[in-house]
Structure formats: C-alpha cells, structure tokens
C-alpha cells in the first residue's frame, strides 16, 4: 500500500508541478526540459499507465505547455505515424506470417529436422533446440514468439531424455533471443524507419552475427555436454535428414521468399513481408493443414488432416474460416499494441528533435572527448537500463535519433550501430528483472522466474562476450552488406 501511494503521489506531483510551473521554470534550459520529460514518462510507467499512453501523454503535455503545437497537429501525427511510414507496414505482415507459422505444426517439423541434423552430437537435443530457434528466427521477426513456438516443444523433449529442466529452459531462453537478430526482424524494421538506414542492408547485416551467435551457443553446449556427459541421440542417417528436411521444407521455403525476394530485387521488403504472410497462410491451411477447414477432426486419434479432394470447397472457405480470422485477429491485436507504442514514441521523437536535443547531446559527448568505444559502452548501458522499462521498438525509436548523429560523427558505421543495438536488445531480453524472454520462458516451462533467471545466467555471459566481439569487430556486421551493396553512403 505504501509503495503504491508513494509512486502515485510522485507521478501526480511531477505532472501537476510541470503543469503549474513548467512554463516559467523550464523555458531557459533545454537539458532540464528533457529531464523533466523523461521523468514524466518514467513516473507514469511506474504507476502502471500503458507505455504508449505514458509516452503520448508526456509529450502532449510538454508540447501544450512549452510550444505552440496544437492538439490537432498531435492527432495528425498519430495518423501520419502509420500513413506516413510505408516501411512500418512490414511489421504487421511479418507478425502475420509468424502467426500462421507458429501453429504447432511448423515448429514441430523444424525441430524434427534439427534433431535429425545435429541430434547425434553430445548434448544433441540442446544443440538441435538452438538450431531450431535459429531457423524459426528466420521465419519470424520476434523473440518471444520464437521462445513460445520452439520452447513449448523442446523443453519437454529435453527433459524426457534426461536433461535437467533448468538446462533446457536456459538454452531455449537464450537461443530465442536470436529471433530479433536473424532477419526478418521487427526491431530492425523500426531501427531502419527511425534512422533512414536501408532495411535491406540491415537484414543482410544480421545474417552473419546471427549464425555466429548460434554457433557460439552450440559450441558451448557441446563442450558442456562433453564435460557433464549429457546424453546424445542416435544418428538416423541421411535419409532421415532428407525426410524431415522435406517435411520442414515448405515452412523453410519462406526464408527463400523473404531473403531471396528482397535480395533478388523481386520485392521491396514490405512486399516480401506481405507475400510471406500469404504464403504462410497457404502452407498452414492447405499443405500442413494445422488450421482451417482441412485440419484433423477433433475426435481423430491419428490426427490426420483431410485431403483437399474430400473437401474441394475448402479452397474458398479457408479464406474466411474462423481459424483464419482468429490468426488475423491475433496478429492484428499485436500490431495495434506495438504500433500504438511506436506512434506515440514518434510524437516523443518530434519533441526531442524540436528541442534540438540530439544536437545538444552530440556536442556534449564530443566535447567530453569520448572515443567511439567509450561511446558504444555508454550506448550499451543506456539500452540495458532503458530495456528494463520499455518495449524494444519504442526504445529504439526514442534512443536511435539521439545516438545516431553522434555515431556518425565518431565514424561508426550506421549498420554496425544497428547490429550493436539489436544485440543489446537481445541481452536486455534475458536480463532480470524485466527481461521479456525470462517471463515467456517461465510461463512456457512452468518454472518460477527466479529459477529461470538462474538457469539463463551462464548463457547470458556468453551473449555478453558476443556483444563485446560484435562491438569490437565491425566487420562481422558490415562485410555482407558492403559486399553486396558496396560501401555505405551516409546521407545526413
């Protein structure tokens, strides 16, 4: 009770104080203004106000008190957040593709394929879990959905063959973070939209670090498995690899559509996302038949899906089947919450640019004489702290415009900066107290939060080492995009 009243009182005091005295007290100092703005946001967040409303209300009050902006133009920017940012429309499409793909069937087939490939190594099932996470990451743009899809199957399977639950949960919790590093990635779309970096380059840049991070995890598991004598599976032969591969192939072909389509110059990234969503629907409804009119009957113990010739009208009805509507609705709901945060973060971004905060921060950082590395360490710390309060895409929209100009001044490659930010977000997802993946894993594995935190922490160390490597060696991020697109031209 006391904490609650105190938090509420602080928030009310800050807002009322700002409304009463903001205009006279804050006008002379831009630094102070922004501090108060962020204090408003954080105090509202602590009370339990939705992130989007915290950002929007703080910015609106700020604009009404300290500038000439009218409410009408705030409403306009709310509309323009979607209408004026054609890149962001890729987000709902990627979410939708991932929703169709997340039906148990696709994850199951990818996991079978992974086990056939790497299951015979010591610690094979864990390595297969990482491999499956990597592949699923290449289908979906978000980390939590990767953890849910892969974790709900793999954690139970690992326990059955004799791994501890903690080990299983720790591995999946970490490997799931690859969802935002391996393209496509919603976080990268937001970074590209916030900084006008090419999204094609960003996706391309994520491939090598994503594979590297996955390999690091796998090698660590392998070493641990040799030491701890973890069980290994049987090598089933190439036949099994091809069999499972063919079954998973329909799902994995989505990677070809997205990446091949974008890099072959066939689609824009937005179009690729839309085509991927339609493809994922067709696969889910007509090939795998985990949803829609052809899915197996509830009372069928063998769970065989119906053949199309028995129900040819399914070709038409699948498009309006309740399952399809529910998938569209689920993806739509997630889109609404994410985009509403993004739209309000854009209003806050306008406030910051109007106040010329990026310039002020740039000059103060440069005057302080920070080198590129010191700067990147500061970025790491800001993102890790910010990640505790904020949804990743909202955080990027606010932080990226602040640090981007400094990075350019310091000669840091924008693509490299983007990858560093994404890897930071990954670490934030498995850092207590508010790591997103920790919550999800705890829910999926049915383990208390504290146990998941402990289970994930050794692997967290690995990811931190990975962050250091990625930070110090820009070539990991920039080689592929520079090879395919030529050196980055920085347009300010």
């Amino acid at each position, binding site marked *: *009770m006391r904490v609650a009243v105190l938090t509420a009182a602080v928030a009310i005091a800050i807002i009322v104080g700002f409304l009463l005295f903001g205009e006279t007290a804050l006008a002379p100092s831009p630094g102070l203004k922004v501090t108060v703005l962020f204090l408003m946001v954080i105090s509202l967040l602590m009370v339990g106000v939705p992130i989007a409303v915290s950002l929007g209300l703080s910015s609106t009050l700020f604009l009404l008190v300290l500038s000439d902006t009218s409410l009408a133009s705030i409403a306009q920017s709310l509309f323009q957040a979607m209408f004026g940012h054609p890149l962001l429309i890729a987000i709902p499409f990627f979410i939708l593709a991932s929703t169709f793909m997340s039906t148990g069937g696709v994850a199951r087939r990818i996991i079978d394929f992974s086990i056939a490939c790497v299951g015979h190594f010591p610690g094979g099932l864990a390595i297969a879990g990482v491999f499956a996470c990597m592949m699923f990451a290449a289908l979906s743009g978000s980390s939590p959905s990767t953890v849910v899809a892969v974790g709900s199957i793999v954690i139970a399977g690992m326990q059955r063959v004799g791994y501890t639950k903690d080990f299983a949960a720790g591995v999946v919790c970490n490997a799931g973070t690859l969802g935002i590093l391996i393209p496509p990635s919603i976080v990268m779309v937001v970074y590209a939209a916030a900084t006008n970096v090419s999204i094609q380059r960003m996706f391309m840049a994520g491939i090598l670090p994503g594979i590297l991070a996955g390999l690091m995890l796998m090698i660590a598991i392998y070493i641990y498995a040799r030491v701890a004598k973890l069980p290994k599976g049987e090598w089933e032969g190439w036949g099994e690899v091809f069999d499972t591969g063919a079954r998973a192939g329909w799902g994995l072909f989505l990677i070809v559509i997205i990446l091949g389509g974008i890099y072959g110059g066939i689609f824009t990234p937005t179009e690729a996302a839309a085509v991927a969503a339609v493809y994922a629907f067709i696969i889910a409804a007509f090939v795998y038949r985990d949803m829609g009119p052809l899915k197996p009957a509830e009372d069928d113990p063998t769970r065989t899906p119906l053949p199309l010739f028995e129900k040819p009208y399914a070709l038409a009805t699948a498009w309006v089947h309740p399952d399809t509507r529910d998938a569209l609705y689920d993806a739509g709901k997630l889109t609404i919450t994410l985009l509403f945060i993004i739209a309000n973060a854009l209003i806050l971004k306008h406030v910051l640019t109007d106040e010329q905060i990026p310039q002020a921060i740039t000059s103060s950082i440069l005057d302080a004489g920070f080198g590129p590395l010191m700067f990147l360490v500061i970025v790491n710390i800001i993102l890790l702290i910010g990640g505790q309060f904020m949804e990743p895409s909202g955080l990027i929209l606010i932080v990226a415009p602040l640090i981007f100009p400094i990075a350019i001044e310091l000669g840091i490659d924008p693509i490299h900066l983007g990858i560093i930010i994404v890897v930071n977000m990954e670490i934030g997802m498995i850092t207590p107290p508010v790591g997103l993946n920790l919550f999800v894993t705890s829910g999926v594995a049915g383990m208390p939060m504290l146990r998941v935190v402990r289970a994930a922490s050794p692997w967290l160390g690995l990811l931190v080492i990975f962050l250091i490597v990625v930070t110090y060696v820009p070539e990991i991020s920039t080689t592929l995009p520079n090879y395919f697109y030529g050196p980055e031209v920085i347009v300010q």
Partner: protein
Amino acid sequence: MAEREPEPEGLFARVIGEIEKTLIALMLGAMVLITTINVFFRYTFNWRPVNWLEEQLAFTWPDMLGWGYQTSLILFAWLVLFGMGHAVRKRAHLGVDVIVNLSDRSGRKVLALVSVFFCLAYAFLLMKGSWDYFSSFVNLPSTTGRWFPTGLSEMSFRNLQAFYTFDEIGMPSWLLWMEGVFGEEYDKLPRSVGYVMLPIGTVLFFGAFVRSLLRILRDREDRLITSHEAEDEVEAVSRRGGA
C-alpha cells in the same frame, strides 16, 4: 504474472467484441491481400500474353500500383486507430507492472485509479485534437481552446478543406453522395474518408477507459496493462499442460 479472472461478459459485449475482432481481421487481411495482389499486377502488366489479351478483349489490365499502396496505408492507420480502444478492453497494452505487483490489493486499486485517470486525460486530449483536425476536412467548425473545447470556432477558409483528396485513390461511385454534401467534385478519394477514423477511434479509446474505470471501481480489474506481448500464447501453452 497477473491472475486473470474469467470474463463474465453479457451478450451485448460479446457481440460487439466479435464484430470488432472481425473488423480488425478484415483490415489486416485486406492490407496483406492488396499488397500481394499489387506485386502480381506490377509483374504482369508488361507481360506479353497480358498485353495480347488486352488488345484482343479491349480492356486494360488493372493497375493498382498507386491506389493499392495508399489504400493499404490508410487501412494500416485505421487498424491501429480503430483497435487501440479494443486493445484497452482486452487489456493488451504493454506496460511495466513491477510496482503494481509489489502492492497489495488496496494499493493496486489506488494505482489503477490514478493510471486510468491519466489515460482518460490523454484520450480526452486526443478526442479534441482529432475533432479539430478532422472537422476542417468536412467543412465543419473546430473547437476553440487550447486544452478544453471552449466553443466552436468561426468558419473561415481554414475550416473549408473538404476539397483535399488522396492523390492516388480514385473516387468510388458509392461515395459520390459526398459531392452533394460538400459541394465539391471529387475524382479522387476525399481526405476526410481516411481521417474519419481519428474521431471514431479516439472516442472508442476514451470509452474503453471509462469502462476500465467502472470495472476498477467495482474491483473487477486491478490494472490496465499486460507485462509482455506473448501473455496469451504462454497461457495457451500452460493450458495445454505446459512444457
């Protein structure tokens, strides 16, 4: 994580909820299909068999490049503006629940009441802003006052902007009645059609918070937020017997 009570919903609420779900699904589905079909037409309009067919049958292959693109963007904005209230009612908006979880029942009620007050304030400001912005595109007066609507503005050229249109989207015939209403001739879709979702969406948004306020007062709900986006999926997994 927050324990969720089963939703005791009346028939009316259920019907409205279903309609909203369907509308959200339709908007997203239309966005995806329009964008995909757009790609198809972009690749086929210069294709020789198509051109031959065009000559033979004397028709033009639909070119939806421009309007398809803008229409999907309008639907995108509609989806979010329409759905933001629905997301409040489904408690889908993300937030930080650290303090909320640290508090006891009465503390949570205090926090929920304070936060719903701030949300109502924001929704109210957005409602005023939306009307002020939208009204000029339908030749209606906006409201005066910086914070609160203190009255209606004098009509001037600023309020007579119904002639603005989207530059890519043609005027559908079933909307031609708008010409009579506004005394304009439209060959493109008027801007007001796109912007109309602003006042609708913000009113729904405000209404959703009023509902939350009532539910908090009756102890049916103790927060407005969910801590992470995958809560529903995780719940579904644990319902299936967990991992």
